[in-house]
């Protein structure tokens, strides 16, 4: 008897789940009044800490707003925005990735340059191989990590290493700059090329080796509200805050350079 009952019970349960899923989906799509509005910010991973700080300020100014900052490589985020991701704001680490989004007509306004960044070399805090300068990357047995060439940090790293004439291949190309930083702090590589702001965020977890001529390959951070934004007003508020004197102070405290 049991055997005949079970399949039906299972099917019924599955149907109920489907129905329940459909109901909860539609309730998310139409937030009831009084619920906190949600602002989704897509940000280059180098902005992780700075934007977490900005988020506090923003939520203090908008008590009924829930901000969600999603960080990844700018190229990943740009690709997701083009594919229709439900984001309100996009902040990239260079011009090229932002261009992909504006080319598709997805920016709600002309993107704003709100900061600049510069590369540096970081080493594990308990540095055993002692990478003291960029030429040490060429030494036998020294391993280092960079970003994939498509990510802004990878493009900048490649340009800078060419400029410095460094003739040594990295052992890994990570998808975003924070993945490079993690490989360094975990001690899995001897060095990694990251932004000054990432080195700042890692603090005592890394040693910092200044790169000569790093100022010649500055990257620009660009931001825009997106035309697909569910919260266009809030999106503009976020962009305004980041560009304001207050936002700029926060960014400077994380090692970002001011916009030109």
């Amino acid at each position, binding site marked *: 008897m049991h055997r005949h009952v079970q399949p039906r019970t299972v099917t019924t349960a599955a149907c109920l789940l489907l129905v329940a899923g459909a109901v909860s989906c539609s309730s998310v799509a139409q937030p009831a009044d009084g619920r906190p509005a949600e602002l989704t910010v897509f940000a280059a991973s180098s902005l992780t800490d700075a934007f977490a700080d900005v988020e506090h300020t923003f939520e203090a100014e908008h008590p009924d707003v829930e901000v969600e900052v999603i960080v990844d490589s700018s*190229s990943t985020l740009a690709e997701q925005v083009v594919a229709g991701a439900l984001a309100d704001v996009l902040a990239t680490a260079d011009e090229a990735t932002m261009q992909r989004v504006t080319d598709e007509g997805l920016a709600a306004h002309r993107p704003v340059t709100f900061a600049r960044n510069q590369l540096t070399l970081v080493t594990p805090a308990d540095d055993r191989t002692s990478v003291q300068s960029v030429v040490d990357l060429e030494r036998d047995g020294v391993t280092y990590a960079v970003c994939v060439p498509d990510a802004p940090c990878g493009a900048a790293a490649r340009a800078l290493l060419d400029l410095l004439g460094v003739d040594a291949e990295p052992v890994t190309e990570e*998808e975003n700059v924070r993945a490079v930083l993690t490989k360094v702090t975990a001690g899995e590589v001897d060095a990694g090329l990251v932004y000054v702001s990432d080195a700042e965020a890692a603090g005592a977890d890394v040693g910092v080796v200044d790169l000569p001529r790093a100022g010649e390959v500055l990257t620009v951070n660009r931001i825009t509200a997106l035309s697909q934004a569910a919260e266009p007003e809030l999106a503009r508020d976020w962009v305004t805050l980041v560009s304001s004197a207050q936002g700029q102070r926060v960014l400077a405290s994380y090692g970002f350079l001011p916009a030109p």
Partner: protein
Amino acid sequence: MSPPGRRRLRPRSAHGATGAPPWQLVLPALVALSLLVLPVIGLLSRAPWSTLPERLADPAVLDTLRLSLLTATTATGCCLLLGTPLAWLLARADIPGRRFVRALVLVPLVLPPVVGGVALLTAFGRQGVVGQWLDSLFGVRLPFTTVGVVLAQTFVALPFLVLAVEGALHSADSRYDDLAATFGASRWQTFLRVTLPLALPGVASGAVLAWARALGEFGATITFAGSYPGTTRTMPLAVYTALNSDFDAAILLSLVLLVVSVGVLVLLRERWTTGVAA
């Protein structure tokens, strides 16, 4: 075609299971089927067919494919060499805590692969429990090497092989082993000459499952072995990287992976079914 004994195994109307299949089963089955097939159709419909030949001729694509096939096949070899004895221990030997050991074998199966990668780093990374000794004593570093990729793939694929082989050993008649022993064969000889040949179909299907799992490995690989063209960037990693810049390239790589894996599976299946029937 079918041996005479087979007909007795499926008596068609013994349960009174005649008539049209019930909609309660057909409907979910159709949903399941479309769920499986639609993404593949999507892939085929979005493929950059016009630029396909020149994109395929890119040596980088072939290099990546070669790396993938090399690592997945090596990992499968490792699984066979290490997993078959483990399966034998679980199925035939009298070991204490057998259930616990079996649970341990299942861990990589339920662990998210990226967690597997983190775990591998803590074990075999330069700062890892084992890795720091490998580094300081032998100068061996596994992360960011092709060997590291094979290690990650073996880690995730091993349970598939062990489970398949153990299942085959359970269903094979262990009295043949006893018989061999009475003829004076040692346990090792018995394993090689009697047990293993009887379990061969299970070993083969386990190897294919392990190979497919290794070929598709992503999370543990990118976490433990990193991603660099030629040494550690296998096809799934290349798809992920391409996704950030060139959607068409990502689709192309996906198609290649699809064709190769399905092709190999079909080829192997055919060989066995004919091999087993003969």
